[in-house]
């Protein structure tokens, strides 16, 4: 098993903030908007350095999406930042018409995604956003796993021509991917070569999957481990090749089973290479208040549950 070292816990949203700040200095076309969540989205550095290119939209997300679309029509690259629930479900029709159908170059930066939002509870813990966003034609869906990857993905999103949904989270989590990485949209990241079972993970579940793979290896199970940071467009070849090799696939994500990465993978494998699968995800229910770690355990989203799933074939 390849070694992955946590260089210190950091929140993925700060990775977004760092990426945005860098873009502010390197790309004069990048602008940013927030719906009263500048601090939570870590957009302060960009806003302070480029006040002319930063717009406070207030608690009015629908209008923010529209303003971003208009800025994109005018040739700018807007990043809109708010919590994942308000960045997707609340404004689905605005994203559908003004962004995706109109092919405007808008980047949706969504923080506090998933159950690790924690204490605020189910109203804010969106577990449907990947499904909502991946259903929209034209939309790219990225769910990076740590600070470094989120920063790199933010920079890649600005270079991509077209709508991008960038999903990240609130809590501090291990930072273990390379600081100098170049993020390639649509490319799976192979974390370990193995032969007995495939584990495919996205977002916060990638680190959990690395822990699970270590545990499985100690029990003599060889794991093919893939980080799917880009859920759409999916790197189908990487997924199919791994499924052909191991014949067993576990998909782990901080999302509902409905609409999530597991269903995406199942859809690909059903036609290309039917493979027994297990889903480490939440099955058709809302979250609740609690600490991130205890919620992840209670809802079956930690390393222990991934190990269990991998051994259940």
């Amino acid at each position, binding site marked *: 098993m390849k070694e992955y070292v946590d260089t210190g816990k950091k929140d993925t949203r700060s990775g977004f903030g760092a990426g945005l700040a860098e873009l502010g200095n390197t790309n004069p076309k990048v*602008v940013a908007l927030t719906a009263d969540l500048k601090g939570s989205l870590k957009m302060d550095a960009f806003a302070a350095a480029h006040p*002319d*290119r930063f*717009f406070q*939209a*207030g608690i*009015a997300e*629908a*209008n*923010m*999406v*529209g*303003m*971003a*679309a*208009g*800025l*994109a*029509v*005018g*040739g*700018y690259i*807007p990043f809109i930042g708010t919590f994942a629930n308000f960045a997707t479900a609340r404004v689905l*029709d*605005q994203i*559908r*018409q*003004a962004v995706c*159908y*109109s*092919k*405007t170059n808008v980047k949706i930066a969504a923080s506090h995604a998933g159950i690790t939002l924690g204490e605020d509870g189910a109203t804010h813990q969106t577990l449907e956003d990947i499904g909502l966003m991946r259903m929209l034609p034209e939309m790219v869906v990225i769910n990076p796993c740590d600070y470094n990857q989120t920063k790199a993905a933010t920079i890649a999103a600005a270079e991509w021509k077209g709508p991008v949904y960038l999903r990240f989270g609130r809590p501090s989590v291990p930072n273990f991917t390379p600081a100098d990485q170049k993020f390639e949209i649509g490319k799976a990241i192979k974390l370990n070569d193995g032969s007995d079972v495939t584990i495919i993970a996205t977002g916060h579940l990638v680190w959990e999957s690395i822990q699970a793979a270590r545990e499985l290896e100690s029990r003599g199970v060889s794991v093919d481990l893939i980080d799917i940071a880009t859920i759409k467009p999916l790197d189908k070849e990487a997924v199919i090749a791994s499924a052909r090799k191991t014949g067993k696939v576990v998909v782990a994500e901080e999302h509902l089973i409905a609409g999530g990465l597991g269903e995406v993978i199942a859809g690909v494998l059903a036609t290309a290479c039917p493979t027994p699968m297990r889903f480490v995800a939440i099955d058709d229910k809302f979250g609740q208040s609690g600490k991130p770690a205890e919620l992840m355990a209670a809802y079956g989203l930690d390393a222990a549950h991934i190990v269990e799933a991998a051994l259940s074939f």
Partner: protein
Amino acid sequence: MEYTLEQIASQVRRDIVRMVTAAASGHPGGSLSATDVLTYLFFKEMNVTPETWRRSGEGTDQFFLSAGHISPVLYSLLARRGYFPVEELATFRRFGSRLQGHPSIERGLPGVNQAAGSLGQGLSVAIGAALAKRLSGDSNTVYVLIGDGESEEGQIWEAAMAAAHNKVDNLVAMTDWNHQQIDGTTEEVAGLGNLRTKWEAFGWSVIEADGHNFTAIEKAFAEARNRKGLGNPVMILWHTEMGHGVDFMAGTCKWHGKNPSAEQCAEAMKQLEETMGDFAL
């Protein structure tokens, strides 16, 4: 040959009625109420031409239609202004056409810069486009047309607040205040109330004018130009009549989204002079 505004508007109204008749669907009522205002905007007010038009609006005035269902009036004006062949109007709402039921950018129809149809969104987009002009040092103006019924959408008032807050004073928004929507009058359906005091309360500079009188329309647009750059967004409330120009369609919600029969179309044609030549069907 130079046509008068009245001649152009008459031909545009013929186009609208003939398009929705041929398509056996579409929205003639609001298209007819917005015809005169938009005719003036496209032929006299905006400095953009088919040659200088770009989706980005860079270097020219820019128009957004928020009430996408009145696509017939937009398509007719774009064709009559030379953005695409007039004969293409015959493809309205047909399979494979660039003239989708509601405006789309997917098939690259010149003159259309944003999809519209789901209501309440275009004002926000226009604000963003106006901010883009401000950022890039482009002194041209962004225009947007919304419906009065459309103003029941909450996003319109989010946008109203945002435009004033950001001092978007290179934007001229317009409301087609014809007092009709699908289910009845705007008062019966939603109690729309006094739009002037509402927009003023949101910090806008409001102009009211008769939207069927070219002298009044010219004056209102000139006044809007005078108010540009003064720190407030400008709203022109156009007093209009749904279905204006065809007696049996005028002043009622019945023709919001209904196509006439062949006989009714013929009756309408008797009331509207053919000035620029009908497109072939």
